[in-house]
């Protein structure tokens, strides 16, 4: 009796549906349909076939770009971790004033448009910039080309994505109970051993969160690789844009977009199963 009654009220309660309806309809028209159109175009442009996927899977250029994208994303994630971990540590274990100043800096970086940051790296790494001047000063007669290489785009991406890593690790570090560290020390854990066996495992959730986030964003990164990277070493988002803008190859562009989407969703699904997607963005 009780069960059927609660079922009845659940069915008759139309309030949540009324409240959800406007957004639901909107998302259907302006989110689901455009995405479906990409999926359909990947099979039907220019004619109904699997040719676009075949082209992607057999073309040496596409495979190289795909592989390059993965390697870059993995490398950027690793660099963000190496850069972000010490900074998060400094924030979590400094005097409140210092910690707040660093937090302010990281927040600034977070909120500064990444176009601005990309432009700043162009200045820093350009032929008339401070890095080249420094290299000339220490004796390079013909300094190497730095801008528009894999190095410059990777460096800028690390700078742009590091705040995501830092904030995730910092949040976890702040919650570590200092008594835990003290008791480990009293039991004889020192230096590397303390870090390896106590501190690092305690911060692992933050590392996992930050790494997934940085990796997934980096996979689909368009602007910075296009502006700062070498034209010969594109990432997949840049190649998709190229297919659409230059060649109007909607079929091939859509097929690559679908592959990027599926890979991204697989990673996020695994993450969602373990931690819950709403935790990812904090």
């Amino acid at each position, binding site marked *: 009796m009780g069960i059927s009654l609660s079922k009845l009220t*659940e069915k008759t309660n139309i309030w*949540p*549906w009324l*409240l*959800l309806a*406007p*957004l639901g309809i*909107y*998302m259907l028209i*302006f*989110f689901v349909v*455009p*995405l479906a159109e990409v999926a359909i175009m990947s099979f039907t442009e220019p004619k109904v076939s699997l040719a676009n996927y075949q082209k992607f899977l057999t073309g040496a250029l596409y495979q190289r770009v795909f592989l390059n994208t993965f390697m870059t994303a993995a490398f950027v994630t690793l660099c963000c971790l190496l*850069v*972000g*971990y*010490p*900074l998060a*540590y*400094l924030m979590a*274990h400094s005097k409140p004033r210092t910690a707040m100043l*660093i*937090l*302010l*800096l*990281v927040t*600034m*970086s977070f*909120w*500064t*448009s*990444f176009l*601005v*940051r990309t*432009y*700043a*790296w162009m*200045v*820093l790494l350009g032929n*008339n*910039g401070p890095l080249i001047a420094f290299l000339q000063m220490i004796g390079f007669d013909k300094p190497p080309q730095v801008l528009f290489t894999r190095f410059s785009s990777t460096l800028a991406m690390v700078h*742009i994505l*590091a705040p*995501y890593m830092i*904030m995730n690790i910092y949040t976890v570090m702040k919650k570590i109970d200092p008594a835990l560290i003290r008791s480990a020390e009293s039991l004889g854990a020192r230096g590397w051993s303390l*870090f390896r066996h106590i501190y690092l495992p305690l911060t692992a959730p933050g590392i996992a969160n930050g790494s997934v986030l940085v990796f997934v*964003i980096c996979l*689909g*990164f368009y*602007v910075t690789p296009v*502006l700062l990277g070498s034209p010969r070493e594109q990432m997949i*988002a840049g190649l998709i*844009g190229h297919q*659409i*803008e230059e060649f109007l190859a909607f079929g091939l562009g859509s097929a690559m*977009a679908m592959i990027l*989407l599926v890979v*991204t969703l697989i990673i996020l699904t695994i993450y969602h199963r373990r931690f819950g*997607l709403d935790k990812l*963005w904090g």
Partner: protein
Amino acid sequence: MNSFMRWAGFIVVLFIAAPLVIVVPMSFSNASSLQFPPPGYWLGYYRAYFTSVDWLIPTWNSILIATATTILTMVLVVPATFALVRHRFRGKGFADLMMLMPMAVPHIVMAVGYYSYFGDLGLVHSHLGVILAHTCLSVPIAFLVLSANLKGFDRNLERAAQSLGASPAKTFLHVTLPILRPGLVISSLFAFIQSFDETVVAIFISGRDAETLPRKMFDSIRQEADPVIAVISTVLFFVVLIGIAAPYFAGALRSRAPKPSRPAGAH
């Protein structure tokens, strides 16, 4: 371990800070190309920015589009958030997940979709097209902020109002809304910034008629690296600095540090 971490952390501080501050001296430079340190200083590029229609129109477009996006996003998201936080119904888990989906899809994928779909609808190169697309992309961040606020809402306050004779509408207007105001403000702000900064979709669909500031900056950096970009960067730098530093100094918001979470996939 401690001293090593501190030294490494200090170097990282320089790495994070250098690109943020370098745009300020660059904006006063009188060099016509990217040169640092600048050979001399003047305000010429500030004049160029504030008098050039080529830059002011995209700035205006961005403000207009971000404002309309914020309004539309909030109109859609506020009721939906109430439904998802306060009601239990079948398919709620799915609906929760769907709210976050626009964040999970890389923007380049959405750009391809909008380029083709809005092409069919005649919405490319129009303000309306960019607003409709940006609203989708702003939904997740507005929802995340607002739902976190609404979950922490003490419903006893509403019950107290109603037990004292307030109608549901009155309770909503005089109790619920005022308490939720900080959440509504922050969530609107996030929606605004998400739209104002969005680049990839704007590059593909805004065209020349509804060109946004990020699109104009992207084109300019790609073609000639116009020094005016340093001016815009400096202006944006100080807007962000004031926006972040103000709460630290404003007494009313002293306990509330700015939360630097930001939509992902925004690049």
